[in-house]
């Protein structure tokens, strides 16, 4: 394969394309961002006051906690799932594979509805919940379940990608050298999938923080109980508390920007 060299675009046609691309991205992405910052900056004092509202802070904290739980659970499930999908062969693997991608195809509201039908009044799992004295609908566990659903695919896909690329030879070598399966996993596999894991968990956290539709339906946006940052913003807009809404939105946008930094460290494939 010949050397990959980036060329400096030459000629009017090429620079025209660059101009169009930049303009498009600017209009679609940059300008809205700017507008948000400008709007907040324009009303900074009020925004700061509103943010410090305990309701707002609680909402942010709730989102953070749910995101961390999703990170932990689907992080582990992601690694296990990737190992199972890439290294094992069994009947029903295709179906499992398709199931894992489903959360990407389902609209968040439908997700909420699905869980409503499962855990709500007259739902299939209602008897189980009642017996265990567990509340899912309009309660914290519901938020967690919904978030787990929507964040399922991310870590699995990224780790599976890396596992597939690397192959089994290092693990085979470890086996010949006397390592147990756990040792081989801990000392050889884990370090090798670190980048995929990082990327996957970052996407998981981003998605978890951003989840709105499902938690709205399942949680009901009950202030102080199931009000996540996103539903808080929604409620604030409904109540015409624009400053608050923009403030929290900016905070989430800033968190996203931080996550973006990690995402950008993604190794460029194909070179």
């Amino acid at each position, binding site marked *: 394969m010949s050397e990959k*060299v980036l060329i400096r675009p030459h000629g009017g046609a090429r620079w025209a394309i660059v101009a169009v691309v930049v303009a498009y991205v600017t209009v679609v992405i940059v300008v809205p961002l700017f507008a948000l910052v400008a709007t907040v900056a324009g009303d900074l004092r009020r925004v700061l006051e509103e943010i410090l509202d305990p309701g707002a802070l609680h909402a942010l904290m709730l989102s953070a906690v749910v995101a961390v739980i999703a990170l932990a659970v689907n992080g582990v499930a992601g690694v296990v799932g990737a190992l199972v999908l890439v290294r094992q062969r069994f009947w029903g693997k295709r179906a499992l594979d398709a199931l894992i991608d489903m959360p990407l195809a389902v609209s968040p509201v439908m997700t909420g509805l699905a869980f409503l039908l499962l855990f709500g009044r007259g739902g299939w799992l209602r008897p189980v919940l009642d017996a265990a004295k567990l509340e899912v609908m309009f309660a914290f566990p519901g938020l967690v379940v919904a978030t787990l659903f929507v964040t399922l695919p991310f870590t699995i896909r990224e780790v599976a990608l890396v596992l597939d690329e690397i192959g089994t030879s290092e693990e085979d070598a470890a086996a010949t050298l006397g390592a147990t399966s756990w040792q081989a996993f801990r000392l050889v596999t884990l370090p090798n999938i670190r980048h995929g894991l990082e990327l996957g968990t970052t996407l998981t956290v981003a998605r978890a923080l951003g989840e709105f*539709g499902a938690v709205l339906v399942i949680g009901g946006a009950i202030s102080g109980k199931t009000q996540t940052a996103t539903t808080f913003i929604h409620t604030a807009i409904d109540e015409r508390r624009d400053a608050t809404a923009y403030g929290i939105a900016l905070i989430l946008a800033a968190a996203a920007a931080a996550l973006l930094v990690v995402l950008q460290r993604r190794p460029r494939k194909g070179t």
Partner: protein
Amino acid sequence: MTTRELQTSSWIPRAARPADTSTARARNRWTLLLRGGFAGYVTVLVALPLLALVVRGLSVGPRGLWEAITAPVAADALVLSLVTSLIAAVANGLMGLAIAWVLVRWDIPGRKLLSALVDLPFAIPTLVAGVLLVALYGPQTTAGSVLSTYGLQIAFAKGGVVLALLFVTLPFVVRAVEPVLRELDHAEEEAATTLGASTWTTFRRVLLPPLLPALAAGTVQVFARSLAEFGSLAAVSGNIPHRTLTAPVYVLGEVERGEPASAAAVSVVLLAVALALQLASRSLVALVDKRRV
């Protein structure tokens, strides 16, 4: 040369200790445990709720389904969803290819920044995206008021829906096409040039064909994602029935009205479309892998 023993100390490696003939059975147990545990987790978390949804949706019977989706508000919502998603797919399909091209092949100042901006929609909550657009184009802002004098109220209008979708789905085609672009061999282009092909011809006949499956797959993803989009639209479009109400928002409305059955019915239709699109996307991806020499 004398025969030297490898052993140089008192620690005895396993190889030299008395033979240990344990079987490979323990490993198989773990394998099955992990497989079963994971499959169980996915089944309960994903399959079960979706099953509940489908069953409820289908429980209204084919007649009920038909009525649910042809109810005036629902029908308009579905049509709006489909049309706007199509627009987003085409727009971000073309622009996605252009953006990927610029990012992968050309050395421009600010390339890293551009790449980061393209990734932003992956990181940012969709609701916040909606808020951004309201902040920018809502009637209270300069841009908004200017536009409204020209009768083009973006926020609370169809344009807002499309804009929100463009924001949210921008990265998909770019990221789908990028790896394929990177893997393209310069040597093939050079061969085409030595054989007398113009830039456009080379692009059309050497570079584009391998990109098409990835491009198509990415575009289908954009379409599917747009159909499902909810968060950004809840804020932007103001949810005026018949004008800016999309299907997912309609479903929410039905749920809030206490009509889970009709909500489920429309959901089933959306789900069916989403599944069809998933299948299409998968076959396209398989096509990519098959054609790769």
